[in-house]
């Protein structure tokens, strides 16, 4: 028995979301007495960095290295995970509800014949010996309780759904060579430009059609800089080519769940909200007091963004200066 968790890293660091997944896995292990938490990771990374997963309860990390492990390849990754599944017979396998989760979790579920619950937002509860998971449904407009009919479960956890703290401890790290067939030949990888990856960001500053044009984005960039935030946009903004499509959030774009989402010049259409309604706080800046975004936010400023945004950036800058000064 064990709880297996699929973790990822970027620029030599374990992703924040992977600590969250591992902490969730640890809580599952505790709650169901399901044995040790073992993390699986792919690609080159320092043992000492992987060992930090011990701070959220991983006992061991199995790291597959070698050719083809830098980018998710469903065939290669699954074939190697299969060995670990056979060795450990986990009761739970935990993935993120993101594109690597979608690439791998169905293969693991089909192999183990464990029910797969996508978009989980909480720890499960047990009723009559069966597990019930709360999940996101209707693109953020509803939740659903799913009952798993099998002995174990594969889970895809939504980001920012589980609070955790870093404790003490080091996981034991075992490095293995990845072996097996590949699904693809990868020719090129293009990274989005932002400093903070959008789906990992704690704060997101987002612009809509109210920004009037790409030349005005420096206003949002400056605000984002002060907040250490990532940039996002509404769909028309990326359709018109003002911003790259990789920044588009909403029903047809990315789903994000940051602590704070700041919507600037965005009307708040239902398809837009589908991608951001999981944010802990939403702040809106819009000149139209009737804009639907004001029905969906926690704090709102009714005003011209071209005046409000620079003022806000300036006020944050001054606040930080004052704090630093004592």
């Amino acid at each position, binding site marked *: 028995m064990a709880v297996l968790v699929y973790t990822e890293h970027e620029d030599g660091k374990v992703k924040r979301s992977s600590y969250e997944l591992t902490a969730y896995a640890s809580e599952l292990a505790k709650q169901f007495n399901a044995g040790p938490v073992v993390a699986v990771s792919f690609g080159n990374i320092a043992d000492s960095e992987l060992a930090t997963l011990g701070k959220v309860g991983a006992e061991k990390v199995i790291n597959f290295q070698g050719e083809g492990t830098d*980018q*998710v390849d*469903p065939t290669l990754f699954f074939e190697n995970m299969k060995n670990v599944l056979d060795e450990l017979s986990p009761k739970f396998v935990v993935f993120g509800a993101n*594109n690597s989760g*979608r*690439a791998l979790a*169905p*293969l693991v*579920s*089909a*192999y183990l014949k*464990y*029910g*797969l619950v*996508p*978009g989980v937002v909480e720890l499960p509860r047990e009723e009559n010996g069966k597990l019930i998971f709360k999940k996101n*449904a*209707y*693109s953020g407009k*509803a*939740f*659903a309780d*799913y*009952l798993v*009919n099998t002995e174990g479960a594969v889970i895809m956890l939504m980001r920012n759904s589980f609070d955790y703290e870093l404790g003490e401890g080091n996981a034991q790290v075992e490095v293995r060579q990845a072996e097996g067939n590949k*699904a*693809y*030949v*990868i*020719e*090129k*990888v*293009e990274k989005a430009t*932002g400093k903070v*990856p*959008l*789906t*990992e960001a*704690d*704060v997101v500053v987002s612009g809509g059609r109210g920004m009037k044009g790409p030349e005005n984005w420096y206003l949002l960039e400056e605000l984002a800089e*002060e*907040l250490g935030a990532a940039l996002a946009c509404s769909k028309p903004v990326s359709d018109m080519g003002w911003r790259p499509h990789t920044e588009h959030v909403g*029903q*047809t*774009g990315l789903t994000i769940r940051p602590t*704070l989402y700041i919507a600037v010049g965005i009307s708040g259409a239902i398809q837009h909200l589908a991608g951001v*309604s999981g944010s*802990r*706080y939403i702040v809106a800046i819009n000149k139209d007091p009737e804009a639907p975004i*004001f*029905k969906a936010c*926690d*704090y*709102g*400023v009714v005003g011209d963004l071209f005046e*409000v945004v620079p*003022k*806000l950036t300036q006020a*944050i800058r001054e*606040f930080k200066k004052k704090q630093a000064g004592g």
Partner: protein
Amino acid sequence: MKILVAIARTPDTTAPIDFVDDGKKYKEEGVQFIINPYDEFALAKAMDLKDERQDVEVTVISVDSNKADQLLRKALAIGADKAVRIDVEPEDAWQAAGEIVEWIKKSGEQFDLIFTGKETINYNGGLVGGFIASLLGYTYVPETYKLNITDDGKLDIVREIEGGRVYLKAEMPAVITAVEYLAEPRLPSMRGIMQARTKPFSVEQPAGIQPLTTTVKHYLPPKRKECKLIDPENIEELVEILHKEIKVI
């Protein structure tokens, strides 16, 4: 070349979300159902390939009750050659995928490409494609943004990943899941609607695949508390909130 496009029925994107039967079922009354938006992109891509090449035959399939007939007819009118409906409303993605795979095996069809959407907008799984690939041993290419078939029969693909794109080559047979922009959705033409009437449309009995998960109930999220308005002349109040309550500065 044979292409299969899996089509799910979802409520219109602007439809109100409400539930009946103690939250077990979505309230369908008065709601317009559509082809899941991502499946529209997948279908359009299949049509583009059909236009580019002479040898393409496109089958559309849905695991659903007769409520999906109208959507499958629409797909035929858009240009698909055949429609298949497996007569059961599936409980989960495993059941839907399993039924599709059982039908493929039973019919003896050899599909080179199977398209699904990235996810359904009601179930939000994104699982059916992965299950099908796994059960058939096909190459799995989730979240495909661009697709071309090269002269030597390889798939030339751009995939969307978080924070970027991956350019890759893959082999057929493959399961592709479609994101927006894979192709421009098409509308049925008058001629297409006429032709659709005579195209093959078969209704099959389910193989009886059991779901691995079942829905206990749905519920609506708690309402956000009323929005608090901040005077733009007093933006410092917002800075205080960012510091004290939201704790991001």
